[in-house]
């Protein structure tokens, strides 16, 4: 035991320098070349930072494409899901309430056309995306509020839809912040 204490201390110090000092500094140094310089990429409108490209935002107003419900109200100072179990009666009541609210704000939409992501909270509470269906079901409402044609909005959603990775892997998605920035610029 004793003969191992010396090497244990010395090896620990060496490894701390290598792993906890040199390694993260090298990563931070190379990451300066990455988009955003390793600080996170921001989205700017008229010279003002309105958000981070990857972090979702709370959009609840009728004139915007609404984002998903969030357990942390999209405040990225923290992050969390609701952690509600599938059979929790209170949880199911809140889902029902979200469905009712959605139907009030989007009259004419058939209930079974509402995709689940619009009435369920994401894992991070910061989900930046919607599925294309989740965006398109909101078009009628936005067209009415903004007096725009549904065709133009449809085109806008299509333009902002990112297909699967390399066209092969994973789901398609729409970044809600980018979509709403573009929406504000439509004339």
């Amino acid at each position, binding site marked *: 035991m004793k003969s191992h204490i010396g090497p244990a201390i010395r090896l620990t110090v060496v*490894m701390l320098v*290598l792993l906890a000092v040199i390694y993260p500094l090298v990563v931070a140094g190379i*990451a300066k070349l*990455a988009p955003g310089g390793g600080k996170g990429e921001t989205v700017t409108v008229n010279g003002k930072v309105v958000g981070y490209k990857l972090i979702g935002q709370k959009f609840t107003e009728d004139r915007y494409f609404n984002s998903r419900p969030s357990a942390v109200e999209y405040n990225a100072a923290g992050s*969390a899901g609701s952690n509600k179990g599938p059979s929790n009666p209170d949880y199911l009541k809140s889902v029902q309430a979200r469905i009712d609210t959605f139907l009030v704000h989007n009259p004419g939409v058939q209930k079974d056309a509402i995709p689940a992501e619009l009435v*369920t909270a994401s*894992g991070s509470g910061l989900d930046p995306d919607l599925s294309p269906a989740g965006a398109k079901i909101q078009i009628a409402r936005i067209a009415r509020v903004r007096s725009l044609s549904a065709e133009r909005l449809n085109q806008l959603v299509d333009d902002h839809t990112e297909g699967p990775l390399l066209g092969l*892997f*994973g789901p398609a998605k729409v970044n809600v912040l980018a979509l709403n920035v573009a929406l504000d610029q439509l004339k």
Partner: protein
Amino acid sequence: MTTEWMGVIVTYGITVLLAIPLGKFLANVFKDEPNAFDFMKPLERLIYRLGGIDPSREMNWKENLVALLTINALWLIYAFVLLLTQGSLPLNPDGNPSQTPDLAFNTAISFLINCNLQHYSGESGVTYLTQLGVLMFLQFVSAATGIAAAVLLFRSFMPKPVETVGNFYVLFVKSITRVLLPFSLVIAMILAFNGTPASFDGKDTLVTMQGDTVGVSRGPAAGFIAIKHLGTNGGGWFGANSAHPLENPNYLTNMVEMIAQVVIPIAMIFALGFFINRKRFAWVIYAVMTVGLLMLLVPTILTELGGNPAIAHLGIGQPTGAMEGKEVRFGPLASAYWSIVTTVISTGSVNSMHDSSMAMSGTMELLGMMVNAFYGGVGAGLLNFYYFLIIAVFISGLMVGRTPELFGRKVEAREIKIASIVALLSAFLVKGGTALAAWFFIHYGDASWAVKPSAWLNNPGFHGFTEMLYEMTSSNANNGSGFEGLGDNNFFWNYATGIVLIMGRYIPIIGPVAIAGLLARKKYVPESAGTLPVDTPTFGLMIFAVIFIITALSFFPALTLGPLAEYFSLK
């Protein structure tokens, strides 16, 4: 949907295609044969010199265990002290407080042993100094400890009778310089160039398009997330782990993180085959583990794609599957795949919230951790598999009426006793711990802890019980994922899981290494017609049966009270 299936199938395919050459490479590294990373030799010599280590000194298994445990004890004290004082130390741009003693105890142990149970949130519970200097440091060295222990085990399979089985320090250093550090650097770069922050800037504040003022936590996360997966540690930089868009920005990084966490555990199996020159045996182990994985994976994927039946009753569509706790950019299929690989191996990182998984998925996640030997964590999976192997050899020996032997060495009473104790211990820790928690919940609901027992559970009924069962199972398996609704940052959970963590880690390391050491000293009997061959499908089936029966007998009653009951009540 096709692209989501393709994503998962290709991810697994790439993992195996990488694992085979990586296994060969690992075997060469640990056999001291020429390999691609020999240019690291000067760095290694420097580390040995500064560390005061004689790399040529061979040690027996007891000395190696003492070396391993001594340095681990030192890390524990170091981590505990820093976490307790982090609030007044530098590199704390967000002004986060020091941890309470019970939380620091739990956090230090849980990172020391490669579990990464987190009873805090990364954004508010630690500082950049402790994230890097304690948690990330431990992610590297705990993984290297696991690999070194597994290689010590490999050596005992060699045909020559040997007193000495290698040098822990050398195996430990090489695991870092030739595997964990270089590969982490590559993964960190991929993450950084896809949007994961890597700079030391603190929290940002901004006003959103709708006029809300919000913060955005950041920090040098890319390097941390790389080793978190490569070392099967699983502890996240951010609270939401790899569901967080900065921790796992897109489908590409999701594939990379899924590959990174599975590749070394699978490679270790092939490394064993190359190391002891029994490739068929390695394939038998791989096949048993893969069948086990698929039996857990397929039901989970199908359940998640089917959506939540209770939500279907509300009349809305679930075209992509169950979405509560899941991210749109991954979808339920990749989330289901992740939830099983992360519990089957001991990573415990998540890209969806397991508390919101469907009941059947929760069952499968729990089973993955209860078995804890299908691939298993870096090193630890093979160690766990080893005692199932010993029991299987023993039972088959009895069935055919021969003295059980493994690779030319007789398996006798002492070895089988150690293996049985290790196998039974996990059932005791998981069920004993859960029972104790349930007892406090019922009888001491008002105990004045940071979270009162009556407020522990985030969900009522069967699901609430599962939250407690999951926490204990995850601790014992050194997994680190959680049903995160559980209010676990308080006196009871911090200490109770801390103790389960220690027992769940060191006993499964000490047991197999001791067995291996005992076997290695025995006289080598060359294999003959009377030897039970272990590299056949028949024997693979035998191991599988042993795993299945031990797990079912140990855990089925507990599963019945929790997720299975929820499954049958959810219609």
